[in-house]
């Protein structure tokens, strides 16, 4: 007598919690998600193609616009790839500053993540707390390079500027402030019963499956796979730093949350070591005036806050721009997991899961 229909609902591209212009077409049975179709491309600017017509140094500022909440990390990834292609030696001081910037950026990115993730689940206060601390990091970046969001803070072979005097002290001060603030976020969330109920057992993904889907970064480590580019293929000055890679066990939203919360602390640990041990010396290596890498191709990956950020660059050895430029963005690959994760969950979990994958649409679409 009664006829039931699946409800097709369009979540995004204008939706408060799809973190930008992500569109998810949900097929619902009541409130239960039967299937989800992730539609991307609303923020496509053709950065990769554009880069093939820009000189090697101009590309640095294009990479800023990919993961715009962790621009310095993108810069580092790109510059190191070109350095690898040219076999350039980067001075130790520059590598240390890169490490500090990368980790500051990781904290800034995770601040944004914890804020929006908690906001999606309905805890609004964490959002403002996290942004308060992110502001301190932006101030540090502003002092270092003058910009607050898209830094253009690296040069091929080193750094554009040396760190300003007294900057390292401010970084250490920030570390002291931040470590107490992480406890504050955890106080609001980690043992909160509602938070536990909303995140435990939601979007479980086992390690092998996560690997098969190509997940990387915290979503992969949340499933218990010990893969961190900083440890496995150290870049910048990570080989000289002591830090742990936090791992989850169940692979659910809560584990991904715990992994990122611990990464906050580990990042602080790295920043402290790097800032205290910052060596004297030049900030730029021996770089030719005209950057023209020899013919060849290379792939180099770094651990961005979202996961494995890889650059694949082909140079023909003749022109002053890359022949082919391709990015392996962690957000794009992690977003692959969304469809698998949301099946069988409720509408409310969809936003929690988008938050737990921590995607930035600028990086997904490029």
């Amino acid at each position: 007598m009664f006829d039931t229909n699946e409800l097709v609902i369009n979540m995004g591209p204008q939706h408060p919690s799809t973190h930008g212009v992500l569109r998810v077409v949900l097929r619902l049975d009541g409130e239960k998600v039967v299937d989800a179709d992730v539609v991307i491309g609303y923020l496509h600017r053709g950065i990769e193609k554009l880069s093939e017509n820009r000189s090697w140094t101009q590309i640095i500022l294009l990479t800023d616009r990919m993961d715009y909440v962790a621009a310095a990390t993108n810069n580092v990834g790109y510059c190191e790839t070109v350095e690898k292609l040219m076999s350039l030696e980067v001075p130790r001081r520059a590598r240390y500053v890169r490490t500090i910037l990368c980790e500051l950026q990781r904290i800034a990115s995770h601040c944004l993540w914890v804020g929006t993730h908690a906001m999606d689940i309905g805890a609004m206060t964490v959002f403002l707390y996290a942004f308060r601390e992110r502001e301190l990091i932006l101030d540090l970046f502003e002092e270092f390079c003058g910009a607050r969001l898209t830094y253009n803070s690296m040069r091929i072979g080193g750094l554009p500027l040396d760190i300003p005097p007294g900057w390292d002290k401010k970084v250490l001060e920030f570390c002291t402030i931040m470590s107490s603030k992480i406890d504050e976020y955890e106080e609001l969330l980690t043992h909160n019963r509602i938070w536990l109920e909303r995140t435990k057992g939601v979007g479980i993904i086992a390690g092998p499956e996560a690997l098969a889907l190509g997940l990387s970064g915290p979503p992969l480590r949340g499933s218990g796979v010990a893969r961190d580019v900083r440890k496995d293929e150290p870049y910048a000055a990570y080989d000289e730093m002591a830090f742990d890679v936090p791992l989850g066990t169940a692979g659910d939203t809560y584990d991904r949350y715990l992994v990122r919360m611990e990464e906050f602390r580990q990042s602080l640990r790295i920043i402290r070591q790097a800032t205290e041990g910052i060596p004297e010396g030049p900030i730029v290596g021996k770089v030719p005036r005209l950057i023209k890498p020899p013919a060849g191709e290379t792939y180099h990956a770094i651990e961005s806050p979202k996961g494995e950020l890889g650059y694949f660059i082909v140079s023909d050895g003749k022109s002053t721009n890359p022949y082919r430029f391709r990015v392996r963005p962690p957000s794009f690959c992690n977003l692959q997991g969304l469809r698998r994760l949301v099946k069988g969950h409720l509408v409310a979990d969809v936003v929690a899961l988008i938050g737990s994958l921590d995607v930035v649409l600028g990086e997904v679409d490029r």
Partner: protein
Amino acid sequence: MIDALLIPTIKILIVLNATLVAVSYMVLLERKVIAWAQSRLGPMRVGPYGILQPIADALKLMIKEDITPVRADKWVFTAAPIITMVPALIVYAVIPFGPEVSLFGRQVTLYITDINVGLLYIVSVASIGVYGLILAGYASNSKYPLLASLRASAQLISYEVAVTLTLVSVIMVAGSLSMVSIVRAQESQQVWFAFIQPVAFVIFFIGGLAETNRAPFDLPEAEQELTGGFHTEYSGMRFALFFLAEYANIIVVSSVATTLFLGGWLRPFPSWEWLSFLDIIPSWMWFLLKSFAFLYVFVWVRATFPRYRYDQLMRLGWKVLIPLAILNLVVTGIVKVLVGAS
């Protein structure tokens, strides 16, 4: 003549206007308290410390374009906010703000009326409000509001049962359904009912949060999930009516909780003689202070907690709160019989 008509009319006017002002300032209070919780300032632009913000908000909502979506059911769409608003206001008829006082040489009661089924009246009238939400979701002819209105109806039905059961246990202790008599009972038994019915008090508070669609149970309007819920398609004054109703309901729940569990207009520990200096504060002021404390907790909870999921909310309602409320009711009955027998 003057007693039968004029005084009630004046009282109704005062209560209605005071309610509407209180509701708009409740919004400001919420914004300010949440802002302080989040280390911000909150509204600061309109008037000193943003004190005139509600007026600016109301003006803005009034001059905003009132949109009815083409495919909406026009009449139901128009009726829905009214159906939500009216019950939220008429509930105030039985809320006792204070006892009899003499004013201009005339004995005046500080409540509009005291009907002998006051509590029943509140429960039944307040439950009409949910129809507004259901109809709004249905009439919008849009998917997000539809989902939200389904959530709203399920939520209200399940939590109303628990809340009403706690009310029954209070009625058993007080021996009356009249709001005034319940306060008087607390005066004569010399104890606030929150102390002899703590379980009922807690369940009532949680149920109250859920019934007024407040965080952490604000599923029908979960902005992050349903883009605004049942009022997604509403704009201007009609949207404002939903909000006024929501805040009016919060004030009702706070007032009812104050009356039932915190001794209404009575000062704390009315039996303790040495506290009698507190009588300097008039009775209605005590009532407002206690209600204000409740409102504050409402806002505080919103600033602190994440949101429950739909199925978890149902589980909490049916599997925890309702059995607890029934158990509380049974225990209350047994104790009452035992005490009566001895």
